[in-house]
């Protein structure tokens, strides 16, 4: 993006590599997805920021949770998230994943997304505007630079608790744990 960052390229080539190529997994989880097509097409053109939607989670390292998350979708989100290779970043869109939003009293949507998977950034708004998505991406860059976007590490380390929360909601999950369930620290 800017020439001044060439130094950084040499320092931490891996970071720069994934920082400027945040590929988003193609998953329309909620109503916020309506602002994603404008963002990835010609008017706003997210490719300038290195954000492109990709077909499978295996290729992606950015997960946009676009809006409210119903129970059924949460299961799919967890599976998709676990399929994504490290390093991976999650961004919560709009009010709903933060504190329930409009659906704070719905029996079928979860209220706090970060109880089930780690989230690296939140965007306010209902809908967030395309501009907000871009600023979120730049914020994510900064966080990657500073080593603050550590959601995936947290997921690995605290996997036991995440899995517990998930199972509190769904009962026994059909797939085996991604990481060992024992607490490393005892």
């Amino acid at each position: 993006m800017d020439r001044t960052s060439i130094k950084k390229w040499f320092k931490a080539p891996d970071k720069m590599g994934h920082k400027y190529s945040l590929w988003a997994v193609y998953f329309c989880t909620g109503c916020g997805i309506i602002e994603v097509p404008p963002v990835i097409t010609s008017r706003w053109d997210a490719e300038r920021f290195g954000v492109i939607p990709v077909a499978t989670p295996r290729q992606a390292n950015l997960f946009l949770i676009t809006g409210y998350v119903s129970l059924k979708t949460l299961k799919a989100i967890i599976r998709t998230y676990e399929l994504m290779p490290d390093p991976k970043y999650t961004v919560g869109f709009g009010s709903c994943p933060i504190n329930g939003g409009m659906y704070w009293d719905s029996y079928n949507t979860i209220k706090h997304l970060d109880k089930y998977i780690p989230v690296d950034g939140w965007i306010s708004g209902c809908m967030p505007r395309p501009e907000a998505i871009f600023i979120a991406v730049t914020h994510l860059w900064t966080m990657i630079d500073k080593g603050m976007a550590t959601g995936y590490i947290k997921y690995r380390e605290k996997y036991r608790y995440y899995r517990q929360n998930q199972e509190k909601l769904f009962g026994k999950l059909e797939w085996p744990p991604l990481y060992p369930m024992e607490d490393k620290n005892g």
Partner: protein
Amino acid sequence: MKEKSEVKKGSVLKPFKAIKYLFEKPGTLRYPFEQKEPSPRYRGFHLNDWDKCTGCGNCADICPNQAITMVEIPEIKPKTGEKNERPKIDYGRCCFCGLCVDICPPGSLRLSRDYLHIHFDPGTFTLLAKDEKTDKEHFLPEEKYSIFQASLAHRKTDNEGFVSDLKYSLFEPERVPMPEVPPEKRVLSFMEQVLGYSREEAKKEALRCLECKLCEDACPAHLKISEYIKAIYEDKPDESLRKIFEDNPIPAICGRICMAHCEKACSLGKRGEPVAIRWLKRYASDMVEDYKKALGVKPAKSTGKKVAVIGAGPGGLSVAYFLRLKGHEITVFDSLPGGGGMMRIGPPLYRLPIESIDKDVNYIASLGVKFKFNTTVGKDILFEDIYKNYDAIYLGIGTTVSRSTRVKNSDKAYPALLFLKENKIGKGVKVGREVIVIGGGNVAMDVAREALRLQHIQYPGEKVVTKTVSLEDWDIMPATKEEIEDAKAEGVQFNPGWGPKEIKVEDGKVKGLLCMKVKSVFDEQGRFNPTFYEDKEMFLEGDMVIEAIGQAPDFSFIPKELFDKLEFTPRRKVKVDENGKTSLPKVFAGGDIVNLNLDAVTAIADAKRAAEGIDLYLKGKLK
């Protein structure tokens, strides 16, 4: 459309026309280098003008997502009728619908055009909305602002978006007009000026209430206003009256002459007209023919304790009512031939007819309260005897002696109370053709308007004048705006800012009033201490002068040895404790001799407090 059914297969080459777009200006907005301003109506984060906000909490009530909580701000010193609470918005809930903006009665809550807040911590998504006026650190000026800095913590100044508009607000800013007799007609007789709401009008007016309950805090007696208004809206006047009677047993009187502190607090009054709370109370009492049947309240079992109430004014009546419900034996003494006290003689007939007073008094009497009218304590019955024979005494004597200006020849002037009393329940007064009323308070307005009516009745068709002289200028005139407007409409002339110097008398007849210009009314400490320009004089012609500059209480009935024990505050009010008890044993007091508000509803509030105190005292729980 013509080729509707036939299907064109189309060419393969034609699409290459699109190549021309290669040479056109790209449609891409090169954000963030190229920015797009949000529209002028954009619904972004909240702004709240803390100076205008009343803390009514309507925004929190209307929010479909319960995103708004009212947070108490200790630094804010609320004015009367306001709360020191301000809305706090949770952007983990907010859906930016703007309902809170459309319901905000003072119009302080608005939405800005800021919308960027991106953070890794979901705890940062709450905002105590505040305006740039009061909050300098969070609003960056244009040159300091950048989109990368934009967040809930740093926003742009003067970036107002979706704002409240009275035309599209969710509340109705205008009152249902009260049917009134027009001024040119009402000066000719003593018929009641305000006609009262019809059922539809009352319901429509009751519908306006937003139930924010600011009025209930402002009312001295803390009536459950929102509840009784809701009952009126639901077409249940009985229920409404029951709610009123919990705190105020004289709704027919209060519904007409109350000073309506509640309406001054009403949040709708900030940009529109307040809910007509007083008229709705009046409607509730007028709609119910028989209080007893509607309320169905019976006094508790008799306790055998006897309480004497001196003065059958609003306070006395209320004490009698509340204590009677608790089962005590109540006797009310009053020198007038009927109940109501000052209400009976003060407010002219066009404001408060005798029937309305009697409606309330008769109901209280029907509960078993004994009334001894035409009984002047100290003359017909001695205070010592009462003091001996009763278990507790309530002094609700009010202020019954008109103050005099004490200028030269002031003995030729008519005292206001006498004037009012004679007209309302006495023989009537012969007024002059040119009447001068000294005073700028509500009593002065009553006197002036009444004098004007009498002039019209006594000198039909002739040219008559009533003028008032008051020390206070327009802005500090103590009378309510309503009264002043009504008086003006009827033709009363005003001379604000003049003080009386001398009443000119020739051959024993009043010729007029010599006035001098007022320099200031209050001194530096805010106490009443008028000063004058002695040389600036004005002469008002007139053949009758009425003094309406205030009243004082009359304690002459209390024997000296008891009176000496009665303690007073520095402002010459009877000192009472939190139970309404005076320094005299078993004597309680309330009303105008205690408080500074000098109105009926404060007297009721005092009475309620004293009634609780007397009840505790009689049960032996109070020493």
